[in-house]
Structures are given as C-alpha cells and as structure tokens.
C-alpha cells in the first residue's frame, strides 16, 4: 500500500511537468486559435477582442499560472471551439471511449491469451499454421480499411450490425435491457477492428511465451506427478507465460483513451480520441492540455497497474523492494 501511495506521489511532479511542456508547446505551435471562428475580413480589432475575451492576449506565463490555478480548483477551463466547459466535454466523451476501448482491450487479451495458449499447445499442426496466418493477416490490416470493409459486409451487404454511432436514434426510450443490447450491437464492429486485430499480436506473444514455459523442467515434473493437462497448463504454465503479457497490458492501458481515433472516426463513435484530434487541429488550448493530462494519468496508472499485476502473478516479485 505504501508502495502504491509512493508511486502516486511521484506521479504528481511527472504530470505537472507533462502539462507544463504541453502548455508551452501548444502555445508556441504555429496557428491562431481565433482564425477559425471569426471572419477573415473582420477588422483586426475583432480578433484582438476575442483574444482578450479568451485570455490569449496575456503573456504566456500569466496564462499558465491562471490555468494552473483553475486546474487546482478542478476547473479545466472553457473550450474555445465547443463553447462549453472542458470538464463537461470530458465527462461526456471519456465514458464512451472507455466503453469502446475497454471492451476492445478485454477482447484483445481474452482472445489473444486463449488463441496463444491453443496454438502453443498445438504447435506445428494445421490449426497452428492457420491461426498464425489469420492472426498476421488481421494484424497487418489498416484499421481504417478493415472498419469500412466490416461496415460494408456486416451492415450493408448482410445487415446484422449497425454501421455507426454508439446507439440507435432515440434508443434512450427503449426498456433498459433493450438499450444495453442496442449499445452492445453498436460495439461489435468497432471492437472487432480494435480488439481482434490487436488480439492477433497478443496471441503471438502468448504463444511464444507459452512455448518457452511448457518446455521447462517444472512442467515436466508436474506432468510426471500425474496432474491433468488442464491443471498443468492453467495452474502452472499460464501464470509464468503471462508475465510478458502483463507488460503488454500496461503498455496498452493508455490506449484506452487515446488509441481509438481512427475507429471512432470510421464508426462515428463520439469519444475522446476524435475530440482530442479536433482540439489539436483547431488549437483549442484548454481542451488539448486537459486531454493530455487525462492521457498522461492513464499512462502512469497503466504502469502502476502492470507493476501490481506482476506481484500478483509472480510471488518472487515484492513491490517496494521489501522481499
């Protein structure tokens, strides 16, 4: 527990540094945020007035300290382009992105681990070769193209899934169980693109790791003791084989919020990835900095979670150097 608290405490200066650097970079990057929402033939005083209203006429350090003060009170500022508080916008988009990316991550690791184990156990068989070929094919397919092909195949040609959006129009008025089913249906195609393609990569990691483990002496000993195959693999081999997967999981964690930009665009999924990209293109400074802060937090949380999982899987590892 002390270790976790120490890690969280050490993350604060890291996040502080991250937002400071982001703040400086976005303000120094070329591009005037007011250029997009006032007429180009308007008197220059109009642009100046708008900059004053948005606080952009102040020196950079004043803007920075003002922003820090706001954030300290839980206020991320006001989005220039969306005309709404940034915290409201994040509150709308983050849960939707977490639903999509979280489902994709679950599919990725559940499928990836299962396929990895099966192909390792059936090494060199036709099943192994086929699965490896398909996995490589899925992994090398561009998300954009795969998304459009899936929409064409399973929404237009064989209309079994919705093409886009995160729910049907007016689905809010359906009974709750139908509403959930409706959202799940909308999740299928984007999750396939995000999760199944990544599962292909995870499966290859697990397969390699599993092959290493099942050739080790202690597995032979377990079999020699007369343990069943399920017990040997599930109890003894899997635990060790999953250690590299935990690293992969930790690295995938930040993707929960920022990695789905292309899929969100293709499937019109109203999440944070799209919002972040729009903010960057429109130089919506408060929005860019807030999304960076959230993503940075996710990276740190991902690493912390990976470390905790290591300790759970491998008893030899003791957090905080106590063991």
């Amino acid at each position: 527990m002390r270790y976790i608290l120490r890690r969280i405490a050490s993350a604060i200066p890291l996040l502080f540094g991250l937002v400071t650097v982001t703040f400086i970079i976005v303000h120094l990057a070329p591009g005037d945020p007011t250029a997009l929402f006032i007429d180009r033939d308007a008197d220059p005083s109009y642009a100046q007035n708008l900059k004053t209203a948005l606080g952009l006429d102040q020196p950079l350090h004043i803007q920075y300290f003002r922003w820090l003060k706001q954030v300290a009170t839980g206020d991320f500022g006001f989005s220039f382009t969306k005309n709404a508080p940034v915290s409201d916008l994040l509150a709308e988009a983050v849960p939707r992105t977490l639903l999509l990316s979280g489902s994709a991550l679950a599919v990725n690791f559940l499928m990836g681990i299962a396929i990895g184990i099966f192909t390792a156990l059936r090494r060199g068989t036709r099943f192994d070769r086929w699965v490896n070929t398909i996995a490589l094919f899925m992994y090398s397919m561009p998300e954009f193209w795969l998304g459009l092909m899936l929409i064409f195949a399973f929404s237009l040609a064989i209309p079994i899934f919705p093409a886009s959006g995160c729910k049907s129009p007016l689905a809010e008025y359906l009974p709750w169980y139908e509403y959930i089913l409706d959202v799940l249906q909308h999740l299928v195609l984007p999750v396939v693109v995000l999760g199944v393609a990544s599962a292909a990569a995870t499966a290859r990691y697990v397969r390699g790791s599993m092959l290493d483990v099942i050739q080790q002496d202690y597995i032979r000993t377990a079999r020699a003791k007369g343990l069943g195959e399920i017990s040997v693999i599930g109890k003894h081999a899997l635990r060790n084989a999953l250690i590299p997967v935990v690293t992969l999981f930790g690295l995938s964690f930040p993707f929960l919020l920022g990695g789905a930009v292309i899929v969100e665009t293709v499937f019109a999924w109203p999440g944070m990835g799209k919002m972040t990209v729009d903010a960057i293109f429109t130089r919506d400074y408060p929005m860019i900095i807030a999304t960076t802060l959230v993503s940075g937090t996710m990276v740190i949380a991902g690493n912390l979670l990976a470390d905790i999982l290591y300790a759970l899987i491998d008893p030899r590892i003791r957090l905080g150097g106590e063991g």
Partner: protein
Amino acid sequence: MNLRVPMTLVVFALLAFAFHSCGKSGGGLENTAIVALSADVENFNPILTTSTVSSEVQYCLYPQMFDLTFDLARGRLIYKPGLVKRWEMLDSGRAIKLVLRRDVRWENGLIVSPQDVKFTYELLGDPSVASPQKHYVDDMIFTNGKFDLDKSIEILDDSTMLFHFRRGHPNQLFYLTIPPLPKYVFKDIEPRSIRQHPANLKPLSGGPYRFERWTRHQEIVFASNPKCTYPGPAILDGVIFRIITEPQTRLMELKKGTIDLMWPVQPEDVDDLKESYREIRLETLPPRQYEYIAWANIDFQEYRKSGGKTIRPHRLFGETRVRQALTYAIDRKSILDAKLGKYGELAVGDISPMFRWAINTNLRPYPYSPEQARSLLRQAGWQDTDGDGVLDRNGVKFEFSLLYNVGNARRAYAATVIQENLKQVGIVVHLVPLEATVLYEKMNTKDYDAVLAGYNVSLSIDPADRWGSIDNPFNSAGFQNDRVKELINLGMNAIDEEKAAYYWKELQAILHQEQPFTFMYWIKDIVGVNRRLKQTNISTLGVLEGIGKWKIGDPRSSYSMD
C-alpha cells in the same frame, strides 16, 4: 472434449444477438427524419457560428426574416414576406422600412419583436462579441469608426423598424436576413462573455422545431415546435441530426436506409447510387464555391516590413503575362474531369455562374496550352540559361512553394497536377500542405508566394471583400487596380441589378486579363435523399431550407420522377 455442441450454441446466440432489433431504434421514428451531418455544429447562435453545417441547422430553430427563393432561371434572389410582412425602400435604397408580423412567437410565448431584431444587430456590431457574421452591419451607419446602432436602426412602433445604410444598393435587403435572437434570453450578459452563454448550446426556439437534446459528436434531436406560429409547427414529429464525419460511413448509412439525407455525395459515388439504389434520389446544387490559386502579385514581405508603404511587384508573379502563363500551363480540365466530372465547371472569374445576369459571357476559360505558357514566360525574360531545366531571370530561379490545407483530397490531387504541369514549362513548385489553422494564419498575414484555396460565395455579389484593398484578408493576391476599385464602388452603389451587371462584367474582364488568381473550377454539391423524404426544398439557399415542411411518405411514389 466435444466442443461442437457448445460452439453451435454460441454461434446461434451470437446470430440471435446480431439480428435482435438490428436497425431498430427507440420507436417513434416513423415520422422523424434522420439527417447525417459531416461535422458537429459549433453552437446554435446564428451570430456566433461560422460553419455551413451550423447555419443549416438553424433553419429549424429561428423564424426567418424573409421567405427567400433563388430564381435559377434569372439568377436572382427573390424576397417574399416572412417575419417581415412588408418592406419599403426609401432614400434611393439608403433606408429600408420593415413591418414585422405581430403573431410570431418564441417558444416561451413572447412575441418576436423589433427589439429582438435590433438587439441582434447590436451584438453583431459590438467588437467585443467579435461576431463572424459582423459583415451584416458593414454597410450600416458608423460614427468615429464604431457601429452606430441608434443611427442605423430605429424602432418606430411595436412592429415597424427603419434601417439606415451608408449607401443605396439593390441588395441591401440581403443584410436584413440574419435571424433574430431573443433579447429576453441574452440581455443580461456582458457582450464579451456571450460565447459562454448556455443558450448558445440550448437555444430558445422560434422556428418550426424546438431543441430537445445535443450529444456532441453524436446527435442533435429536435422535435416539432407546437408553439410555432410562423411558419408553423414542423409537419414531422422530429428531426435527428447524426454526426458522421467519415464520408464513406455516411454514404453506407444512406444506402442502408438508416439516414434520410446526407451531403455532400462524392461525384465518384454517383453512378453506383443511381444504378443500385433506386430509393435514393440525388440533387445537385448550383455552384457556390470555387477553388483558386492566389499568386502573390506584390512582394508581401516588403509590404509587411514597411507597414504597407512599399508596394513592389512580386519577383515571380508581379507581371500580368507571367500569371497568364501560369494559368495556361495548368491543366485545370484534367483535374476537373478526374475529381468533379459534370459536378464542376471551369472557372472564368469569381462571380458564380448562378448569377446569370451578372456573368460576362464573352469571356472563355484559359485553355491548357504549355506552348502559350512558354512563349509568355520567354517574353517576360524567363529562360533556362544554365540548362538545368529550370527557368531563370537575372540569376533568380523560377521556384516557389505552393501552400494548401491538409485533409482535402481534391486539393492534394490538384496540387500534384499543378506541380507536374509547371515542371513541364520549367518551373519548380514545392508543395507545402498545412493544417487549416496554420494556413489561415499565413493567409491572414499574407505570408506566402502562392496558395491553393477555396472560397464560398455569398448570395449577393460583393467583390469588395476580395479586390477592394490589399489589406483585405480575402485579397489573397494583394491585387490592386484603380479601375477595379472604381467599378466596385459603382456596382455597389448601382440602383438596380441591370446597372450593376454592366460594372460587374467589366470587372470580370479585367480580372480575366490580369489573372491575379488562377481561377480553377466551380464545385456543385450533390445531396443524397431517401425517397421516403418528401417536400424537401433543397436549393442554393440551403439543404435544410424549408425543413419545417418536410414529410415522410411512400418511397416508391416518386420513382417515376427520374
């Protein structure tokens, strides 16, 4: 272990899940239209929006000042009574008296009053609002450089208003078309804080629909406004705008029948839609946007450095014959054919072909002629003296950067063709794709040699915003010509369109000769509509114009209209 039985069950369960209520929605959609938007709206305040999508959606919410139509045969805007029931031009067009209806109400029952209209113009003219629609007051009365609200707009009684303008102009009425805002809602806010007013996001309606819900990047839901007295409650129960930015996804939703209307349809998708999707009809809008290459006619760097005092011709594009040569050297027709086909036309100038009365029909587009281009460049002294394949003059190579925005496939293609075409005549072009914000900043500060961009023209002809002054941000070429200034002044003060047309035609002839821009092509947007949607009034005024009168009907009933 035999996995066959559980696997079969899983497959059946998945299929049942997939087919369960697929395409089904929350019910109550039988009399609701679903429209796909290519981008989310910025807000619902007509004086704070810049995007076309935002302006279109406002047709649902605000009472329109006039019932406008565009007479394509004559190329003229026709004004019919709307919120304004009568109007009278006074003082040779320098004043307009409006009489408003007294029965038009906001959703909360308050009457849409002359105070609302005047308040809207007060906000438009207030520099602290920095309205992108500020040009609506540009021709009204200014005192000491500031918009003078009381001298511009008088309220004579509870339904009559008098607008004053600096000059008479046949189309001054156009500047009275911005929909009014409810003063009651906005009156207590500091103008400079208006962008943060919650009513921008949740508007009070006075139009055929009322606001129900907006989920950013997802959907906007409007319901018929039963309290709308003019033009009356929408016939449909509601309209849902779905935000689908990816064009191919939007198109597949249209093909699938899960949306009723989308735009723009890409020209390359038209044949497939016509052949395989009989339930979809396509409507083509008259051209209101053109693309151009702005050549820096003057040395912008020197002009900026001297604070606008030094005007020197640009080292490459300062001469008329060089700019003509560039237009001859670019195969605009091949770009047009490849990217727009019959949904575009070569541009001669910057007055839209839809304004038939103003078009100088004697002018023809420059043909693609590399020979003519080489000859003109030679006459201007540009030759390849050192045999490296690049033209030079007095030790200066003919080499420049062409800026354009990323994310526009047609422009990216055009830029590549331009680069290749100009290489054929010995000119080196460096392509510089830029993010929109960076490009706009460079265009505003005129920090470039050449830029490939586009322009949406208004429904009224006003060349002053492009050719009036070098400092005008839309005069992207820094073009200056005394006769052009004179013609703009004459045209803008002409008492009727026939007289104005005389000046506009001469103006086009000068631009055609001088080629400050290479005018590329006009673009006609294509709108895809499911035939179940009836009584749409898609026109150059707007795709959603008249949305209150839309109906849902039998999709088969209009097949014969093809």
